[in-house]
């Protein structure tokens, strides 16, 4: 019925049972919201690397890059390597996130600018989490359905139920503690197909014999032109600070060094895996003639089905499920943290005890997931969803970058920037349907210019607000006595 052997099924069920039991076991250690949302900020270097790798590495990335490389060659790698030039900046940014001591990125907007911007960011981030989880589930379901022949809808429901159980029960501690295992599965996912694929096409020499030379170029003449890649690189760098889960990914380490090493090198491992996904796409191009597969994002599943022996098919499905569970559980928790702390606690029920907020967080986690499940059912393409995400998150990144660097930046400038960049994007990217990179360049220019001009012309934020923000940035965790000397507290009220 499933197209899977008993051995495949045994591998999958053993994995799922093990990972769920472990999530439930470690959930006994989760007593409060700080533990649920930020893992009590006690993760070491290895766990931080694993967390960064697994929350940033998803099956839909592999599926998207392999599909693009199948069609346009090695240059398809840039759909994920757009972040390769941003990665060194993770080294510089992670101590900033840690020193700010915020739980969510909405805290950043509220503390640096205004409550209204914090609220707006919370709503924006909830949309992003929903979109992202939907994309992840969609990508995994497409592949697993392609392998097994099972209904895509049923797979979407099954995968969703699994990570809800896992994430709601254990929170970030459970997610991060299993990331070691998930990390291994992700590397397996990236490289398992390659030796079998190379054997099928006659090795690297056979690959070159079957494909045109331009398929091996890192520069594509269509779809991902050098200008478009450059714009994706810049957009990726601008938006990286505003990705809603990064406050937890970059700031939950035991020390600044753990945060730096974890975020930076976890992502470098991901960049390495990306080479494997692109190579898999090239192998697919040699195996399947263009047009023989209905959608390019199905090639990954088609390769698994055709190349892997019994047992390894199960391992690959388990690997895909691992990335879905790790990423979705982390996003679900970050999303519920945003809602619970920045909307529910502030505007709906300010005086409840921590147990109430913990329960709220868990309920919201489940509710958010229902939204992403609906998103998964309606999304058209994994790559389109990824580019859409990268584009809109950059608009929010502009005020963050300027606010960190420039004391003069204020909330009026931030609002103006958000409105200007969104409006310019709508004009070029939506109304005129431009897709050559200008739809990324013009909104960013509009956002930066407006942010600086409006901030310059209007009153700066109050001394209290600025002092608190920049004092935190100049006070490493552990030196809170320095804050008290200038009359500040380290924690948010």
């Amino acid at each position: 019925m499933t197209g899977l052997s008993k051995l495949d099924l045994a591998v999958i069920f053993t994995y799922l049972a093990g990972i769920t039991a472990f999530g439930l076991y470690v959930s006994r250690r989760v007593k409060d919201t700080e533990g649920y949302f930020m893992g009590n900020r006690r993760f070491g270097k290895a766990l931080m690397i694993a967390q960064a790798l697994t929350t940033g590495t998803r099956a839909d990335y592999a599926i998207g890059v392999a599909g693009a490389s199948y069609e346009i060659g090695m240059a398809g790698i840039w759909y994920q390597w757009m972040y390769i030039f941003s990665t060194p900046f993770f080294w510089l940014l992670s101590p900033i996130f840690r020193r700010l001591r915020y739980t969510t990125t909405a805290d950043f907007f509220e503390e640096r600018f205004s409550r209204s911007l914090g609220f707006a960011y919370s709503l924006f981030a909830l949309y992003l989490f929903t979109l992202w989880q939907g994309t992840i589930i969609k990508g995994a379901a497409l592949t697993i359905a392609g392998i097994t022949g099972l209904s895509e809808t049923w797979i979407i429901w099954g995968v969703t139920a699994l990570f809800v159980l896992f994430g709601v029960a254990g929170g970030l501690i459970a997610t991060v503690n299993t990331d070691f295992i998930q990390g291994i599965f992700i590397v397996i996912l990236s490289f398992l197909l390659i030796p079998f694929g190379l054997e099928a096409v006659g090795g690297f020499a056979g690959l070159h014999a079957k494909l045109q030379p331009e398929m091996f170029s890192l520069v594509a003449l269509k779809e991902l032109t050098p200008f478009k890649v450059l714009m994706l690189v810049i957009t990726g760098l601008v938006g990286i600070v505003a990705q809603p889960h990064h406050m937890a990914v970059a700031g939950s380490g035991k020390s600044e060094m753990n945060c730096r090493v974890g975020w930076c090198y976890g992502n470098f491992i991901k960049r390495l895996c990306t080479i494997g996904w692109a190579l898999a796409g090239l192998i697919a191009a040699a195996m399947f003639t263009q047009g023989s597969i209905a959608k390019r994002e199905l090639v990954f599943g088609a390769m698994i089905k055709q190349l892997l022996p019994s047992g390894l098919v199960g391992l690959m499905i388990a690997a895909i499920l691992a990335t879905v569970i790790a990423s979705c559980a982390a996003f679900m928790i970050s999303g519920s943290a945003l809602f619970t702390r920045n909307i529910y606690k502030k505007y709906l029920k300010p005086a409840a005890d921590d147990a109430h907020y913990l329960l709220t967080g868990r309920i919201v986690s489940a509710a958010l997931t229902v939204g992403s499940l609906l998103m998964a059912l309606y999304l058209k393409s994994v790559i389109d969803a990824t580019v859409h995400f990268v584009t809109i998150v950059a608009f929010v990144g502009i005020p963050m970058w300027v606010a960190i660097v420039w004391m003069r930046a204020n909330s009026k400038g931030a609002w103006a920037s958000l409105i200007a960049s969104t409006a310019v994007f709508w004009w070029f990217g939506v109304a005129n349907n431009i897709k050559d990179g200008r739809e990324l360049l013009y909104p960013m220019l509009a956002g930066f210019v407006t942010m600086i001009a409006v901030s310059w012309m209007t009153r700066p934020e109050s001394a209290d607000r600025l002092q608190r923000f920049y004092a935190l940035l100049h006070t490493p965790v552990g030196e809170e006595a320095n804050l008290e000397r200038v009359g500040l507290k380290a924690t948010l009220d």
Partner: protein
Amino acid sequence: MRDQEPQTEVQPIPNFQMPLSQLEEDGHSLLIVDLLRLPQWFSYKRYRLDVIGFLVAWLWVVLLLALGWWVARIGS
């Protein structure tokens, strides 16, 4: 404690005290946070961790790009 110097823009930034961190003086200062003041403030000693880690990370970028380029050429 060091005082934040008054600015000369149309609407001046309010004056306030900033904490002084020994760790920051010993290499843990942050390049991005101090970006606009780097021409006056920069010293290797103060930004040691940022500078070393950032340069090493760029080495990894070069290595990965070279690896991607090389993988695409194996067997050609």
